């Protein structure tokens, strides 16, 4: 894509350029796709630690005495049960119960929340939120002021520990704390999009370069690498994590995507609930599956799937899995063909290749019994 006048960039663009990153336009942003190479960067995150600039992500603050009730109605997960200092995975759903966006919802205190949303959807999300406002709530787009750096991998905690004063052992998955990171005030959550232990670090854009460089310096002994969007995609796909616009979107519901756990149908009314209740009762017509190819060809987004010659679905994401050493992907498939172990075919450049439906995720990180004592 040509770079247009409207292409935005993060505070780290010059750093990425200087370090020889290959740049790409993604969701209206000029972003690093890789630095040393997608395979090396992928391996760094699985085996050691990697640092991502994902400042293109959007941050929307929702606050006020009515914020909890508003978000409880606007999003499908249970906001009332979300404690301060915790985040959870959730979504904005339309009336059909399908994804306007998926998001992380952070709760700072009883009246202050932050939604972290996909870069491509910030404007649409804001419009949706504002057009549904109820009660005493203020909504603010904090995206332009906020940089987001993701430190991911088995050694991420030992790297982060060098630049924060908090005891990271006490920070559980999806917990977060506010405090200084390399001397800069921000907040840090134990979250990520890679399937590894890791952290997402939110700081003011003015401080993005200095925090980024401090993290790289802190991680140099652990072999930290800057990681681009290409490896972010292979990592998230191995981990079975959805990408909005590929695997989920405005015509896919959480029930079809295997994300029923996000939808708390019995918490009370919320946007999309009626459609989801009906879909649950009637059963879904198609499901998102994982698949593996036996050959080395990659079945990419849009490739059609067949079951005994009959079209049954479409690939939503496909890539080469560096960890498994095989081509993998996700696809939306008619339920009759979606069982684990189903033998299907996918058409890749005019040729049919056998694929097997498998469970998600493709990769689960090894549990480390020593983690609690390592720091």
């Amino acid at each position, binding site marked *: 894509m040509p770079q247009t006048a409207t292409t935005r960039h993060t505070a780290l663009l010059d750093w990425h350029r200087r370090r020889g990153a*290959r740049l790409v336009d993604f969701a209206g942003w000029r972003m690093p*796709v*890789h630095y040393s*190479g*997608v*395979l090396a960067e992928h391996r760094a995150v699985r085996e050691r630690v990697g640092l991502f600039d994902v400042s293109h992500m959007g941050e929307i603050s929702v606050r006020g005495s009515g914020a909890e009730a508003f978000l409880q109605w606007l999003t499908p997960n249970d906001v009332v049960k979300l404690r301060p200092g915790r985040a959870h995975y959730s979504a904005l759903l339309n009336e059909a119960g399908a994804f306007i966006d998926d998001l992380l919802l952070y709760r700072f205190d009883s009246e202050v929340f932050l939604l972290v949303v996909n870069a491509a959807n910030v404007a649409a999300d804001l419009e949706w939120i504002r057009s549904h406002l109820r009660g005493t709530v203020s909504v603010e787009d904090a995206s332009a002021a906020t940089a987001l750096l993701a430190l991911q991998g088995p050694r991420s905690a030992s790297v982060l520990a060098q630049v924060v004063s908090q005891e990271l052992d006490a920070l559980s998955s999806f917990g977060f704390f506010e405090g200084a990171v390399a001397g800069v005030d921000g907040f840090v959550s134990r979250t990520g999009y890679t399937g590894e232990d890791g952290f997402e670090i939110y700081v003011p854009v003015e401080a993005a370069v200095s925090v980024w460089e401090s993290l790289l310096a802190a991680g140099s002994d652990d072999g930290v690498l800057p990681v681009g969007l*290409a490896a972010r995609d*292979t990592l998230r796909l191995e981990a079975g994590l959805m990408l909005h616009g590929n695997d989920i979107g405005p015509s896919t519901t959480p029930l079809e995507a295997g994300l029923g756990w996000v939808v708390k149908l019995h918490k009370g009314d919320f946007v999309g609930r009626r459609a989801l209740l009906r879909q649950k009762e009637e059963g879904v017509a198609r499901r998102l599956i994982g698949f593996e190819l036996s050959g*080395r*060809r*990659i079945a*990419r987004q849009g490739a059609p799937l067949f079951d005994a010659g009959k079209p049954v679905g479409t690939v939503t994401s496909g*890539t*080469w899995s*560096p960890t498994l050493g095989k081509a993998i992907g996700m696809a939306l498939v008619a339920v009759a063909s979606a069982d684990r172990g189903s033998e299907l075919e996918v058409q890749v*450049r005019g040729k049919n290749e056998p694929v097997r439906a498998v469970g998600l995720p493709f990769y689960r990180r090894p549990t480390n019994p020593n983690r609690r004592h390592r720091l």
Partner: protein
Amino acid sequence: MSYPDDRKYSPEHEWLRIEGPDGVLGITDFAQDELGDVVFVELPEVGDSFDSGEEIGTIESVKAVAEIYTPVGGEILAVNESLEDQPELLNSDPHGSGWLVRVRLRDVEETKKLMTAGEYAELVGPDGA
């Protein structure tokens, strides 16, 4: 990136080194850099014949797939078998051990339309030179 003088170049970012009646075909350093890490190379069978401009195979990288179009017609005499187990040779040594196929040239005249190293370096510009 530098482009050896001992061969010719196509606008599709392939190189062709002429060795007597044969041509050895590969992709350029610029092309491998554009593709990123290569995970799979699909090559023709020895004995297959192609016209110039025909697709003879594909290169699959993590992020994209690229067709290989032969800039010259002829019969495939050999394919680089090492690429089956080491597709990464295309990234690490595109002008050498990452060669793709050896072709018996059908018409040497077809090689005349190809570019010199200097012309090719100019085509890909300062970022690729």
